[in-house]
C-alpha cells in the first residue's frame, strides 16, 4: 500500500463529500471574517499605545496573524479531525478496524478525515500575509519564501506530533475529549510573536506545545528575522517530535485491547 496514494484517496473522497454541504463554506467564511476582524481590532488597540511590540512593527504583526490563521486552518482541516476520530475510535473500540488493515496504522489514522471548508482559513491567512507584505513595501526573496515554507511544514509536523502524543494518552485514560479545547486555548497564544511572553510561557510554547515553531518561526522567516541556525534547530526539533510521537503511539497501541472484550 502506497501511503501517499491512500492519503490522496481519502482526500478526494473527503472533498467530494464536503462539496455537498455548501452552507459550510459560508459559515466558515463568516468565521474567518470574524477572526480577522477581532485580530485587526486587537492590533489597532496595541498600536494605539505603542509603535512596536517586542521589536515587531504593525505590518509585521499582521503577517504573524496571517500565519496564525493559515496554520489554524491546517490544524482544523486535517490534524484535529483525524485526532478526534482516533479518540472516538479508541473509546468505541472501532480502532480494531484500522488495526486489521494491511497498512501502517499511524498513517491510516492520520489521513482518514479531511474538512475541506476549513481551508478557507488557509486562503484568508494567505491574503492577510499578502496585505502585510504590501504594507511592508518589501519584496519576498526566493530564500525567504523557501525558508518560510520549510518552517511552515516543520511547524505543521510538530503540531501534528504533539496532537498524536496527547491523543495516544487516550489509550490509557480513554477520556481526553477536552484536550481539543485546551489545545485551542494554547494555540490562541500564537497570535502574538512568542517574544512578548515571559520566559516560562515562552519555553512552554516552544517545547511543550510548539506554537512558537508553528507560527512565530515561519513569520520570522517571512520578515527576515530567521537565520540558518534557527531553521536547523527547528529541523532537529521536528525529528525529535516525530520520533517521540511515533514511540508513544506504538506504546499506546500495545496497551490497547479494544473497548469491551
Amino acid at each position, binding site marked *: 500500500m502506497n501511503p501517499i496514494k491512500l492519503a490522496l484517496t481519502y482526500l478526494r473522497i473527503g472533498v467530494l463529500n464536503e462539496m455537498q454541504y455548501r452552507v459550510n463554506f459560508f459559515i466558515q467564511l463568516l468565521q474567518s471574517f470574524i477572526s480577522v476582524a477581532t485580530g485587526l481590532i486587537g492590533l489597532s488597540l496595541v498600536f494605539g499605545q505603542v509603535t512596536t511590540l517586542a521589536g515587531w512593527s504593525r505590518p509585521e504583526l499582521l503577517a504573524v496573524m496571517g500565519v496564525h490563521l493559515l496554520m489554524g486552518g491546517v490544524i482544523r482541516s486535517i490534524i484535529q479531525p483525524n485526532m478526534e476520530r482516533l479518540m472516538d475510535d479508541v473509546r468505541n473500540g472501532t480502532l480494531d*478496524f484500522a488495526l*486489521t488493515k*494491511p497498512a501502517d496504522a499511524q498513517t491510516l489514522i492520520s489521513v482518514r478525515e479531511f474538512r475541506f471548508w476549513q481551508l478557507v482559513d488557509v486562503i484568508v491567512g494567505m491574503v492577510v500575509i499578502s496585505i502585510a507584505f504590501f504594507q511592508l513595501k518589501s519584496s519576498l526573496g526566493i530564500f525567504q519564501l523557501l525558508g518560510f515554507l520549510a518552517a511552515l511544514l516543520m511547524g505543521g509536523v510538530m503540531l501534528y506530533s504533539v496532537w498524536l502524543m496527547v491523543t495516544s494518552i487516550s489509550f490509557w485514560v480513554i477520556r481526553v475529549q477536552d484536550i481539543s479545547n485546551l489545545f485551542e486555548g494554547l494555540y490562541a497564544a500564537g497570535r502574538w510573536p512568542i517574544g512578548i511572553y515571559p520566559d516560562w510561557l515562552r519555553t512552554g510554547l516552544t517545547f511543550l506545545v510548539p506554537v512558537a515553531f508553528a507560527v512565530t518561526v515561519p513569520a520570522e522567516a517571512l520578515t527576515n528575522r530567521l537565520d540558518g541556525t534557527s531553521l536547523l534547530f527547528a529541523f532537529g526539533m521536528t525529528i525529535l517530535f516525530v520520533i517521540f510521537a511515533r514511540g508513544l503511539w506504538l506504546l499506546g497501541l*500495545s496497551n490497547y485491547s479494544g473497548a469491551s472484550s
Partner: protein
Amino acid sequence: MTPAISVSKLSKHYKVPEREGGMKAAVASLFNRKYRTVKAVDDISFSIEPGEIVGFLGPNGAGKTTTLKVLSGLLHPTEGMVNVIGYEPTKRSHDYLRQVALVMGNRNQLSWDLPAIDSFELQRAIYSIPASEFKKTRDDFIDLLELKDLVNKPIRNLSLGERMKMEIVGALLHRPKVLFLDEPTIGLDVTMQRRIRAFIKEYNQRWGATVLLTSHYMADVEALCKRVIVIHHGQTLFDGELSRLVTQFSSFKTLGVTLPNPEADLSQYGEVLTRDGARVTLRVAKSKTSQVTANLLSDLQVDDLTVEDTPIDDVIDSVFTSTEEAK
C-alpha cells in the same frame, strides 16, 4: 491437509483494576491500585480446516470475542500458539491482514456520512485491489445482497439491516480467505438475518473461505455450521458436530399433548413446561419417552401427541447451566 486455523493451548489473561464502590475507594485506587487477573481465555485448543464454517458458541463473556481478536492480530496471547493460514496473527504482517476480515455486528467501520460506494473505494485503496477485480466483486456483492438502490445514499440514512449488509460488502471486497464474524446478525429482523446467512454461505462456497462465526441466534448456527465449538469461562466445553451436541447434552425430549379435557393433571408423566388451553408440553427423560407415550395414550383420551428433540437453544442453555452447577 494443513488446517486453516490452528489454536493450541491459547490463554489470554487481562489485568483489570479493581476497586469497591464509593468515594473513599475511588480516591484510594488513585494511589494504590489493586489488580485482578481475568482469564478471558484459558487453555483453548482447536483447529479448523480450510473451507469449514464453524460456529463459536458461548454466553456473554465466555471468551469468544477475545479469541477472535487474538486470531485477527489485535491481541497478543498470554500463552499458547496461534497459526492462521501459515501466519502468526500477532505479527500483523500486511500479507496476513490482506487475507482475513473481521466483521463485528455491533460496530461499524463504514463512514457515517459517506455513501457506501465511496467507502468501498477507500477499502480498495487500503487493500490495493486491482480495479477490474474490485469492480466485479463489488457489483457481484451488491447484486447478491440487493443493495443497488442504496449504495449512493449516506450510511446514516440506511436502516440497521441495510447498514449491516453494506458493512459485510465492505469487509469482504478484498475476498479474504478467512472470515471472523462476531455476531454478524445481531439486532436484525428474521428476513435480514436469513439474507445475510445466505450470503455468508454463498461466499464460503464460491471462494472456499474458512469462516469462524459467533452468534447468539441459533438459527444462524443451524443454517451455517455443521460443527460448533462451545466455550464457557474461557474453556472448551464441546467441539464437534452440531447434531452430536444435541444428543450428548440433551437427555430430554419434549412431548406435546392435546387433550379434550384441559383440566387433566399430567404432572405424574413428566415436568409440565407449558399449558396453553388444551395443549400441554411435557419434559420427559429420553430413556422414558416411549414408556410415557404409551402410558399417556392408554390412560387418557388424547387428541394429538408429538415427540420432539429439545430445541437447540435449550440444549445450549442446559450445557451452560449444568457446568455452572458442577462448579
